């Protein structure tokens, strides 16, 4: 599914923010990505959701070597990835429904099915009353649920979430985690970046731990 081999990454001519990262995510696996602030979690996620290319090393995703994958093939790979951004990155002028529908519409899905699926999912995450609300009128927790709904609506093969339960109350946090677990049970590989030790301990799943740009804990890696 995903394989990193000696990957390094830097922004511009700055120092490397990730060094010698090597790990493998098996199809259908569920990982927590942890580490202190500034350890490189978001940078690693950026590599995973194809927002950046590595400065060195080899990344293989869905059996594609990214160093040789042409730019025009990236949209096909990105459509297999769902992302929950830490700052949500919702489109403020679109309704919750239109925001969640974006991945389906971009992929050219049938409009009637889009509406049906999106409405159903928004109801599931408790936003049935906010379907036509725009993000600026939603609370942080509601925005987060819209962001999660947008990430999972296309049933991605890889789901990446940056602090997906950071802005919701514990009950809703659990509900959202169960949504991600359900998705995982259907075969989606899930990586959740979080600081929340309680969450990590509640769900006994393998961890990837970053510290100062280096992977210090990974399945198969000596701690």
């Amino acid at each position, binding site marked *: 599914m995903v394989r990193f081999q000696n990957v390094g990454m830097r922004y511009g001519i700055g120092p490397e923010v990730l060094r010698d990262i090597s790990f493998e995510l098996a199809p259908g696996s569920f990982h927590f990505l942890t580490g202190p602030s500034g350890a490189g979690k978001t940078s690693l996620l950026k590599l995973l959701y194809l927002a950046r290319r590595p400065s060195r090393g080899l990344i293989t995703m869905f059996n594609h070597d990214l160093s040789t994958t042409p730019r*025009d093939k990236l949209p096909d790979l*990105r459509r297999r990835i769902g992302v929950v951004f830490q700052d949500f990155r919702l*489109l403020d002028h679109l309704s919750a429904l*239109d925001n969640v529908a*974006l991945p389906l519409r971009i992929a050219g899905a049938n409009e009637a099915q889009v509406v049906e699926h999106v409405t159903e999912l928004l109801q599931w995450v408790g936003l049935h009353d906010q379907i036509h609300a725009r993000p600026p009128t939603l609370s942080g927790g509601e925005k987060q649920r819209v962001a999660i709904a947008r990430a999972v609506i296309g049933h991605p093969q890889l789901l990446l979430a940056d602090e997906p339960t950071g802005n919701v109350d514990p009950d809703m946090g659990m509900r959202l985690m169960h949504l991600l677990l359900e998705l995982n049970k259907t075969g989606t590989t899930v990586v959740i970046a979080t600081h929340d030790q309680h969450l990590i301990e509640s769900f006994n799943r393998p961890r990837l731990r970053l510290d100062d740009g280096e992977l210090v804990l990974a399945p198969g890696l000596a701690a």
Partner: protein
Amino acid sequence: MMFRRRTDLQLAADPAGRFLPSVMAVMVFLGTLSFAGAIVLDQAMQSWSRSIEGTLTVQVGDMKAPDSAARVAVAVDLLKATPGVVSATPLDKAAVDKLLEPWLGKETLATDLPIPALIDVRLARDAELDTAALGARLAQAVPGARLDDHKPWLAHMVRFARTLQWLALGIVALVGLATVALVVFATRAGLAVHNEVIEVLHLIGARDAYIAGQFQNHTRRLAILGAIVGLCLVGAVLVALAGIAANIKAPLLPKLELAPRHWLMLAGIAVLAVALATLTARITVMRTLKKMM
């Protein structure tokens, strides 16, 4: 449930796009007006050419000379005997005075100014006449006789009109270039404003063409609006100019009335301007996005 029309990029609120319709209106106005000028000049050239086609003028010395009538008669006989000549009619003094009066004035004509005797020659349609040879024969038969086929005069007029026509087409091309520059600027400004949303769209799988489609549709809408205004303005100006020109009695002044096909050509220029703006927006977006991951 039905969705209302929506776009992923909120381009309608862009400051750079707000002035696009008004500038497009000016561009289409200037472009179509210049093109209309080129059409009018073309019509004028055809009209001038038609007016002298199949005619020649022969000058035979001074009309007041004692042997003038005899010399004219010899020239007329020679002309009539020439294949291709349908008629050769000497102009009487009144007719010649009428021709010269606008240029010389009545007082000058009343003096002893030498006035040439003129023969108006009409040629058969499709007559292949060697005017140089005819002129030489005339000069030999009637010393001092000179044949004028008006072609040097027409050549000067046509050369001048052609220059103006190229100038008008050059203005059309410049207006096109200015339109391209304007759309590139507005589109780049839009790309900068919406950079974050574009990145999100990319990350959820949008292809460059999907994003470019939104920019090109937006630009097309604004360009159509501007083109309609520009076309209406140019229509009003041309109709007004035609009305003014109709009241001026000047035979050389080109007619400003445009045929339906000419109006269609002007509309075609506006359509081309819209297509140019749309294509420019698309190419600008595609080229800019190529630099992103």
